[in-house]
């Protein structure tokens, strides 16, 4: 076989991989076929890897093998993390993806110099800038999610922040332009990389908490697009396709997240949440709340025929999901219909609440999307809210002065009785007051989510044994 035919065979293998990539995402669309999707992706990756190792351009295998083993050694433990830690694992993997894309771009520049064309320089410059800013941005996001010390989780805001961030971005763009005008300025290239790395830090530091799902999705899309740009640089169609798929996936998810919070991209990126509150009405009305004991809560739940549980990130923080599953099992055994209402931004990344509940062994056909559950809440006896706050706040529908006004919420106040498991009356992360708690049909269940739900379960099993 001539070397030309060998290269063609490699290219054909890449085409097969690309087809399998697309099928992988197609099959992932529903739980019934999703496992087939993963298998398809795995075969595609294995084929592409084998074809690449067979490429005659590869002349040295020993260190590549070592690097692959190191990669597997890092990847396997990262694949074994608990579902609560999946958001930070995801952010870290965006960092790794962006890191490798930008390192390859950097290597390509220094290998190519002094024969880098202006056009090629524009591609490399853009690719390396996006890759580098995604790398540091994702590292900061991962550190915030992991609650690493010295990295503030809350949004960090200072005066003139946006001006500083935008000037750094402008500097990166100017450096690309300078390099395009004359690519033979190898000393400018590292400065461009450093400026982009700094911009990544500035981009993500001011964002936190409830905005994390949007940030992760956005970084996902940047990581994808940097890989696609690398495909342009190296003229590799398989990278262009994989990057375009990953990039569009992240982009769609960010749009979904923004819509679920009724906010725009610019608002998420440049207007930190939780800052608006200071301007809110400081009127402290003496409003009364009604609270209930685990015993009373158990009685009410037992008397119901239809219950909707609304979980939020607080449930994950309290590690209450397994107690919630016990509650679910107990009530279901008594013939009570229990479903879960999942808001799109509940949790710290898209779909986070679903994997948490699936990990706790709750059947996925009991997990309902916001629109489906909202049409059922009117006929629901009890809405039980565990660790969710803003996504149930009726002020989003009624109070134009509320910072979350216009955000689509779960209409739990339409249920006959509302029960809220909450540590205290302190407002949630975003610091927005929730009128739901003062509603006549609301009962506050004060305590730790795990402990309180456990107490309810004990009451329920005690009653049935009598």
């Amino acid at each position, binding site marked *: 076989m001539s070397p030309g035919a060998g290269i063609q065979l490699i290219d054909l293998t890449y085409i097969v991989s690309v087809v399998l990539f697309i099928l992988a995402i197609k099959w992932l669309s529903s739980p019934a076929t999703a496992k087939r999707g993963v298998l398809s*992706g795995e075969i595609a990756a294995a084929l592409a890897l084998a074809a*690449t190792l067979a490429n005659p*351009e590869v002349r040295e295998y020993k*260190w590549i093998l070592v690097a692959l083993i190191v990669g597997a050694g890092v990847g396997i433990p990262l694949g074994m993390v608990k579902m609560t830690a999946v958001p930070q694992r995801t952010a870290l993997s965006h960092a790794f993806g962006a890191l490798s894309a930008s390192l390859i771009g950097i290597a390509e520049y220094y290998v190519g110099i002094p024969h880098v064309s202006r056009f090629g320089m524009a591609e490399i410059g853009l690719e390396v800038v996006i890759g580098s800013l995604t790398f540091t941005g994702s590292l900061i996001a991962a550190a915030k999610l992991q609650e690493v010390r010295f990295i503030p989780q809350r949004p960090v805001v200072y005066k003139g922040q946006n001006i500083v961030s935008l000037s750094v971005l402008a500097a990166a763009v100017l450096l690309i332009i300078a390099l395009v005008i004359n690519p033979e300025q190898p000393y400018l290239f590292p400065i461009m990389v450093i400026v982009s790395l700094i911009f990544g830090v500035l981009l993500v530091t001011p964002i936190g908490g409830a905005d994390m799902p949007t940030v992760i999705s956005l970084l996902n899309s940047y990581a994808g697009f940097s890989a696609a740009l690398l495909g342009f640089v190296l003229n590799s169609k398989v990278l262009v396709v994989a990057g375009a798929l990953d990039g569009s996936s992240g982009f769609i*998810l960010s749009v979904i997240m923004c819509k679920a919070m009724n906010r725009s991209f610019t608002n998420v990126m440049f207007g930190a949440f939780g800052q608006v509150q200071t301007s809110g009405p400081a009127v402290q009305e003496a409003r009364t709340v009604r609270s209930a004991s685990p015993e009373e809560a158990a009685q009410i739940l037992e008397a119901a025929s239809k219950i909707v549980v609304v979980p939020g990130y607080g449930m994950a923080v309290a590690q209450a999901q397994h107690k919630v599953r016990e509650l679910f099992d107990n009530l279901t055994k008594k013939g009570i219909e229990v479903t879960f209402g999942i808001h799109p931004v509940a949790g710290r990344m898209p779909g986070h609440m679903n994997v948490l509940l699936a990990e706790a062994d709750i059947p996925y056909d009991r997990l309902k999307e916001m629109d489906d559950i909202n049409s059922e809440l009117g006929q629901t006896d009890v809405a039980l809210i565990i660790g969710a706050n803003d996504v149930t706040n009726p002020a989003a529908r009624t109070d134009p002065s509320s910072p979350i006004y216009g955000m689509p919420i779960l209409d739990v106040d339409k249920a006959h009785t509302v029960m809220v498991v909450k540590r205290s009356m302190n407002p949630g992360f975003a610091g927005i007051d929730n009128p739901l708690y003062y509603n006549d049909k609301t009962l506050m269940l004060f305590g730790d989510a795990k402990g309180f739900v456990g107490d309810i379960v004990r009451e329920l099993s005690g009653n049935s044994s009598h």
Partner: protein
Amino acid sequence: MPSDFLSNLYVFILAGFVGFELIKRVSPLLHTPLMSLTNALDAIVVVAAIIIAGRHETRLSVILGLIAVAASFSNMVGGFFITDRMLRMFKTGKSKKS
């Protein structure tokens, strides 16, 4: 404008549209596995890293290439692994009893 760029642009735009149409249809139930799977697919960058490292052009390109091989391969292995684990957790009420 180089012709390579134009043909890559064609591929990019078409793949972007295909991705958009497919991902729109993914159930929100599976958005977390979707992100980890696309992440693993994106780790195909490893093939470019292997070429860069394997060509043995300069010391710098080999070192950067090898780091890129390790970083992207960890995404590939970890991404497929965790997606598979997550999907195993998704059970219906009926299959749960068995």
